[in-house]
């Protein structure tokens, strides 16, 4: 059995809605509402869901880039929600993040060398020549060359910029990488290059990824286990093949059947959901999915389903399986 590297327990993040003359709190957006999961060392955990389901907020809360409202995040058996800012800063060497938009996450006024060496400097590599050497090494690891170091981000294409972002994240030999939609802004032919690179890096440096994306086929390709989120809650979590071959939650089923497949021969059952995702400021009572669920029962409107393990390693939050 592998050892867990990250344990998230009852994570909640509520954003206040302020309004009125005095800016009083008039409500809250439950962006993440009681999410729990464990990530094993060396594993890739995919998190999928539609926009506004709280997947990015979950990722950022794990790093405490957004301060969680409630819940525990344990990294290597240490509860990081109780650490001071300074201790947290030390720890971030081991936990890094790659962002979606390689255009927005690199400072346009810095050279690539400066961008990549900044995390090195912060975490104590003060010797200038050593830093330079490490930058060249990192650029080569991600498939660029040493001479790229003196260039600026605008001189690179989208795929190359994402490579720079990955090099920056790898600078301090992290153990855990949170990847927040790392390939959604890229073209198909470049997307596959980056996915391959990320897999190679995982094997080479024994990394653990939390891979957040909305594209189910990308997540299926790269992940070992996948969690599906809907309106701030985790509705299903299991190994990838189980999830795709035998989805349990009606939302997962609908999501899978909605993906357009580039193969005219696959006949599939279409299950088109009615309506839109409700607002997280005012989520439905009981099971958040009951307003769109074709199998909704009376109990779904009142009682929130528990996130239970119904089969070995297969967690589902649905009243159908209780």
């Amino acid at each position: 059995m592998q050892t867990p590297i990250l344990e998230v327990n009852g994570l909640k993040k509520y954003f206040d809605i302020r309004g009125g003359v005095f800016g009083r709190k008039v409500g809250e957006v439950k962006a993440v509402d009681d999410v729990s999961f464990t990530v094993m060392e060396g594993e890739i955990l995919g998190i999928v869901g539609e926009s506004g389901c709280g997947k990015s907020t979950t990722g950022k809360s794990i790093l405490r880039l957004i301060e969680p409202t409630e819940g525990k995040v344990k990294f290597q058996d240490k509860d990081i929600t109780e650490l001071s800012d300074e201790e947290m800063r030390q720890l971030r060497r081991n936990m890094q993040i790659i962002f979606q938009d390689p255009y927005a996450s690199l400072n346009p006024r810095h050279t690539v060398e400066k961008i990549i060496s900044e995390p090195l400097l912060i975490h104590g590599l003060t010797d200038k020549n050593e830093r330079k050497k490490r930058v060249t090494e990192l650029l080569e690891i991600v498939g660029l060359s040493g001479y790229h170091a003196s260039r600026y981000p605008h001189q690179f294409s989208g795929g190359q910029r994402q490579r720079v972002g990955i090099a920056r994240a790898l600078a301090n030999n992290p153990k855990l990488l949170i990847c927040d939609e790392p390939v959604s802004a890229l073209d198909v032919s470049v997307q596959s290059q980056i996915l391959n690179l990320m897999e190679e890096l995982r094997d080479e440096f024994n990394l653990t990824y939390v891979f957040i994306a909305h594209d189910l086929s990308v997540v299926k390709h790269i992940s070992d286990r996948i969690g599906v989120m809907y309106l701030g809650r985790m509705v299903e979590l299991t190994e990838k093949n189980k999830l795709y071959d035998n989805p349990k939650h009606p939302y997962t089923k609908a999501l899978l059947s909605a993906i357009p497949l580039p193969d005219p021969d696959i006949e599939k059952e279409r299950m088109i959901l009615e309506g839109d995702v409700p607002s997280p400021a005012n989520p439905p009572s009981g099971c958040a999915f009951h307003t769109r669920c074709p199998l909704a029962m009376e109990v779904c409107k009142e009682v929130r389903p528990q996130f239970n393990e119904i089969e070995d390693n297969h967690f589902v939050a649905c009243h159908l399986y209780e």
Partner: protein
Amino acid sequence: MPETILELNELHTHFFTDNGEIPAVDGVSLSVNKGEVVGIVGESGCGKSVTSLSIMQLIPQPPGKIVSGEINFKGENLANSSNKRMKQIRGNEISMIFQEPMTSLDPLFTIGNQLREAIQLHNKMSKKEASDRALDMLEMVGIPRPKEVLSEYPHQLSGGMRQRVMIAMAMSCDPEILIADEPTTALDVTIQAQILDLMKKLNQEKDTAIMLITHDLGVVAEICDRVVVMYSGQVVEEGTTREILKDPKHPYSQGLIKSLPKIHEREQKLYSIPGTVPKPKMGVKGCRFAQRCPMAFERCFQEDPELYPLENNRRSRCFLYDDAKREVTENANADIRS
């Protein structure tokens, strides 16, 4: 023989910038038949959006200009049409929907107001009649509580609803062709499925031809009859959806399809096309894809390939399908394999 309603013939749209002339659309020829759904696929910067904007004469001028070529719409060349004539055609005979429905709806006017404007511009109707027509359109595209929505503003609707309103507006004058430029890219998968379903329904019920511009081959497989693959401002391959997805001929289409992660297969490593999409430039010699092509041979770097016709009205812009040279290339292929 199906009736062709839109035909592009060697269309060249260039942009004149400080950094020189950029051939965004570089000799595109394609056709759309009545009632057909044609997909135009390609990666960003391949000229698919500029092609569709050229048809509608919506290219900002300057810096853009249709340098040469014909756009034949029911026997009329739109490339030479006056502004006045284009105003009659746009929204009436050819309409268009865009990727981001929020930017194409005016936030200051109600939905009803904007729908009526399109209807009254092309039809002699009273306000009352136009309102009734608008209501019918909203019902047709499946908007819940259409009466209330008529007096609401765009910000009160969700992304999927806004795209439905855009489709209602585009369909309000029963156009011959609907040009849809990435209509579902900004939407979530479950909403995307709803919108694709709606477009398929409209195509079947109203017999409106659809030209669907997308980068997503899954969307293409879902609703298109025929596909045109573009690369660097040119058409590189054309065929039916099944032929292109199952048996792509051009090395670029082959690479593109191979590099998609497949949901139903278990694979170890993804195929990837080396390098990145080149920026269109003037005076490029040889095949645009040659630099990234695994099958490239000497001729590819020296001459421009044509769109060679293949069986079943397919076309492919690759020297591998030039009959006179087929023998040579077979030898070249054997070299690559060995």
